[in-house]
């Protein structure tokens, strides 16, 4: 039976065409939605101008408003193009500049979080009292909205570093945001790594014992390789949440730079197109980061010959 079934495993149907079609359908839906959401605003504008719009005039007006309820996709694309390609990256109007501010804090936080998680996981696997006292808290911390402490870390950390330690404003903000990202990313990594370091079967651990390998050798030759797939899976979660942390960290300090600051400024001044383009930038960033981690994961797993 198994052979018969495996023979039939013809090539799975491709994903590209369906994804494209669904994406196009969503964009079409977006245009329809934009028309209906902005129609009232557009009619008001025409009424103020004492003009009776034709159907097509109304349609085009809904797609070209200054502050639409829902901007049309091409408006967002135009805005993104204007604020990336047509603006020097050093300018405060450049989306690349703001993305970089957020990205740098995300990466710094993610890397230190990963390092911290690695150390903690290794300790938990090897020290029983830590496993039984600390691990429950690490697991429980997954269930609580840690992000709630972000404003406090930012404000308190910022004041501490800027006011008392004498760091510059930008550095203080950067460190505060990176701290939040560290904090958010180290929990999933610890949990994933502990699971991974424990994943080798008993017989494999026993095999290392028959070689009278010491803990260090068992760790590097058995546990760590076995944990790598788990590590990369949890790093995907961690880097996504790291980005959220950095963005949320830009909300409270009245920061003027970063994707979060753009979102906040946009919402103050009702600049919907700016909000949406910041949102798209954040999404692209998130997708790229997750994609890069998963690429790294695939490469490592393939090199280890674990790929299926």
């Amino acid at each position, binding site marked *: 039976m*198994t052979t*018969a079934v495996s023979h039939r495993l013809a090539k799975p149907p491709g994903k590209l065409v369906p994804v494209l079609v669904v994406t196009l359908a969503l964009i079409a839906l977006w245009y329809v939605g934009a028309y209906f959401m902005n129609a009232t605003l557009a009619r008001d504008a025409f009424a103020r101008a004492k003009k009776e719009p034709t159907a097509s005039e109304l349609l085009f007006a809904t797609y070209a408003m200054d502050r639409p309820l829902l901007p049309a996709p091409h408006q967002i694309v135009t805005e993104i193009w204007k604020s990336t390609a047509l603006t020097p990256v050093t300018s405060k109007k450049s989306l690349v500049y703001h993305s970089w501010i957020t990205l740098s804090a995300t990466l710094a936080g993610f890397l230190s979080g990963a390092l911290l998680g690695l150390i903690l996981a290794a300790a938990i696997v090897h020290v029983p009292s830590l496993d039984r006292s600390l691990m429950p808290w690490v697991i429980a911390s997954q269930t609580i909205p840690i992000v709630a402490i972000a404003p406090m870390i930012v404000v308190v950390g910022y004041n501490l570093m800027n006011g008392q330690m004498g760091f510059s404003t930008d550095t203080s903000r950067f460190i505060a945001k990176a701290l939040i990202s560290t904090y958010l990313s180290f929990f999933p990594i610890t949990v994933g790594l502990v699971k991974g370091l424990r994943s080798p079967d008993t017989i494999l651990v026993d095999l290392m014992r028959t070689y009278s390998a010491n803990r260090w050798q068992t760790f590097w030759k058995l546990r760590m390789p076995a944990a790598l797939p788990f590590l990369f899976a949890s790093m995907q979660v961690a880097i996504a949440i790291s980005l959220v942390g950095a963005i949320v960290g830009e909300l409270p300090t009245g920061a003027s730079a970063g994707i979060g600051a753009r979102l906040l400024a946009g919402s103050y001044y009702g600049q919907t197109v700016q909000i949406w383009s910041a949102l798209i930038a954040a999404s692209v960033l998130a997708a790229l980061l997750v994609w890069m981690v998963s690429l790294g994961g695939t490469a490592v797993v393939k090199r280890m010959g674990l790929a299926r």
Partner: protein
Amino acid sequence: MTGEGTSGTAKEAPAIKIAGLSLVFNTNDGPVQALSDIDLEVKRGEFVSFIGPSGCGKTTLLRVIADLEQPTGGSITVNGVSPEEARLARAYGYVFQAAALYPWRTIAKNIALPLEIMGLTRAECDKRVADNLALVDLAGFERKYPWQLSGGMQQRASIARALAVEPELLLMDEPFGALDEIVRDHLNEKLLRLWDRTQKTVVFVTHSIPEAVFLSTKIVVMSPRPGRVTDVIECGFPRHRTLDIRETPEFLAIAARVRAGLRAGHSYED
């Protein structure tokens, strides 16, 4: 249908009639001839075994009979009608290699599953569940979950589930393949007595020669690439038999013939 003249009514039709049947799978590596030009007739009340090495198409043939695969050529009838009609009429019970019991249902609820799907009344369900559990010696285990039972008990429960449909025809795909020798012998004897008592038609897939010879009235020897029938052996043991017959010369002679058939099918391969 390629029978001589007109075939009889559905009532008198053979349990299974296959003529010139073939099946080609389309895979990544091009088409694979899984079954080639199979001719076979199974009469009512027979116990027929398909035996052959893996890849010979014995399971595929059983799945074609059950309408789980569609042939690409030839003809097949089950109880005188197409396999699809037979399936929709719930004409057969199918026992898989694994017990395939649903872990979230108790043993009783698992056996009631096909009956619920057929829309039987609650009372009828309960009666059939109790009867069939007793038939496979599992009375008292109604409220257990499958994962609380041993492998042999699970497989017995899955046989009870197939019998609960009260089919004329029982299709069994290596049902005891995953069990150890001792449990397998025991279940073989039970199955034989069940078949003797209920007068059902059984089609049985196996790769064990003693199992096939012990159970069957007819053994269909198959060989791979392409999957085809190389020999059909009638065995004339009495309907009521015990494991002792495995020591008799007749048994050994038939086993030798099956082995020879299997070897012949293999010979050109290397």
